[in-house]
């Protein structure tokens, strides 16, 4: 495999919040170009923490972070990481802070040094891509929950990232918005990691599903017998056969640390 295809490489990451137990313990994780990884694990197992470490919002205790083949350590290294990785926050109210939708979506591009005209153009295009027509002048806090989530996604996509980190993107969404998001994600030509508790959603949007246990990430190795009487990894998750079997056999997926 080409070395350039390894986008994120975490080795031996450990992290704990002050006064708390170890959340991540000697965690190894790799994300390669084109990977669409689902992360399903109990609350409090450190999924969000993992995302924040990748973005440099939290500093790990120990371990090594390589992103796009470069070792990242300092705040200034992360400035570059943040323009290439888009993080969708759990709570859309954290993400949308500008008065109007257009300003919020244009905020990222402007920070990347685009001119006002270009930023508006990118913002419009992104909103239209997500089917948010006529949202430009809407007031962000007056949007509905589903609209807020989609606009948040627009603010992230407007930065034209190479990787997306989505923290429970369908939490609290209705069926229609959920379907919309599934469709959008399937159509994106991006690598991403998805945190979700929804098996059906992950089955449609992720090629591989991992879980977290004891502060580490692992591929669910148990064999699960299911209805059409055969068994293999991820058998507990609804899936299409050719797809899931193919993708889980990828060597780089196999290399993930397992128990």
């Amino acid at each position, binding site marked *: 495999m080409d070395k350039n295809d390894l986008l994120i490489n975490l080795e031996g990451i450990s992290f704990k919040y002050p006064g708390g137990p170890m959340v991540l313990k000697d965690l190894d994780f790799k994300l390669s170009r084109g990977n669409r990884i689902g992360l399903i694990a109990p609350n409090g197992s450190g999924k969000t923490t993992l995302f*924040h470490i990748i*973005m440099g*919002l939290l500093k790990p205790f120990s371990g090594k972070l390589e992103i796009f083949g470069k070792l990242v350590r300092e705040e200034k290294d992360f*400035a570059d990481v*943040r*323009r290439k990785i*888009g*993080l969708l*926050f759990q*709570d859309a*109210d*954290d*993400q949308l*802070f*500008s*008065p*109007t939708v*257009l*300003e919020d979506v*244009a*905020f*990222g591009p*402007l*920070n*990347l040094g685009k001119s*006002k005209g270009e*930023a*508006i153009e990118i913002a419009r295009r992104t909103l239209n891509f997500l089917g948010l027509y006529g949202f430009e002048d809407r*007031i*962000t*806090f007056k949007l509905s929950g589903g609209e807020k989530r989609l606009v948040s996604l627009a*603010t*992230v996509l407007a*930065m034209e990232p190479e990787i997306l980190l989505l923290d429970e993107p369908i939490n609290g969404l209705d069926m229609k918005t959920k379907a919309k998001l599934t469709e959008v994600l399937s159509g994106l030509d991006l690598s991403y990691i998805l945190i979700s508790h929804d098996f059906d959603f992950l089955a449609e949007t992720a090629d591989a599903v991992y879980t977290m246990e004891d502060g580490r990430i692992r591929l669910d190795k148990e064999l699960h017998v299911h209805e059409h009487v055969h068994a293999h990894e991820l058998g507990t998750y609804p899936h299409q056969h050719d797809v899931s079997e193919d993708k889980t056999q990828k060597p780089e997926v196999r290399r993930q640390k397992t128990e």
Partner: protein
Amino acid sequence: MISEPFATGVSMIHRLDPRIRVGLTVLYSFVVALAYQFPVLIAALSLSSILIAISRVSIKEVFSRMVIVNVLILLLWLVLPFTFNGKILTRIGPFAVYLPGVVLAAQITLKSNAILLAFIALIATMSLATLGHALRRLGAPEKIVHLLLMTYRYIFVIEQEYLRLIRAAKIRGFRPGTNANTYRTYAYVIGMLFVRAAARAERVHQAMLCRGFNGKFYSLQEFQLGFASWAFAIIMTAIIFALIIMELSNG
């Protein structure tokens, strides 16, 4: 729910350039606040009322705001007429009512109402977001403007959190009264609001960092000075000058 009832109208004033409106209102307020001649103050109050009429805002809402201000002014009427020395106007029981106190109270009443009405007609008729951008264009410091806009954005979220906390207390049978339990509960609610607001601020800052925030804000709003805005600016400036001349020539 916190609301902006005046901002959504469609009157001629709503269409004027926000910068013109902000600038003129500030100038006008200073002139009115510094004037002492009754003809000037009465003229100003009339002008403000005319502006309210032009802006076609809900008179009911305007009154509800005037009540708040005038309750405060009522307190002045209860105190000022009795505390100044000078010509005695009349006596109420053992108290003397002094003319200078009455004059001062009347001036304050006229000034406050004139300024309040002008602000409702000219400033409250734009959304706070627009006001922020207008202030920025007029040269207000960037940090102040963004403090204003961020406060505006998150006051709603904090209000929601407050309502959630109060609801949580209510469904468990909380009834406010004059007792230690009530005070403690309110203290918890307020404490919790501070904690949540701080945590929220932290997360918002993280979200901003993730989108490449480097300490600079950009404004996308473009303002256009149309013919109506210029005409309004000229007429208003002329009226303000007339008020100044009236004030000076009578004094």
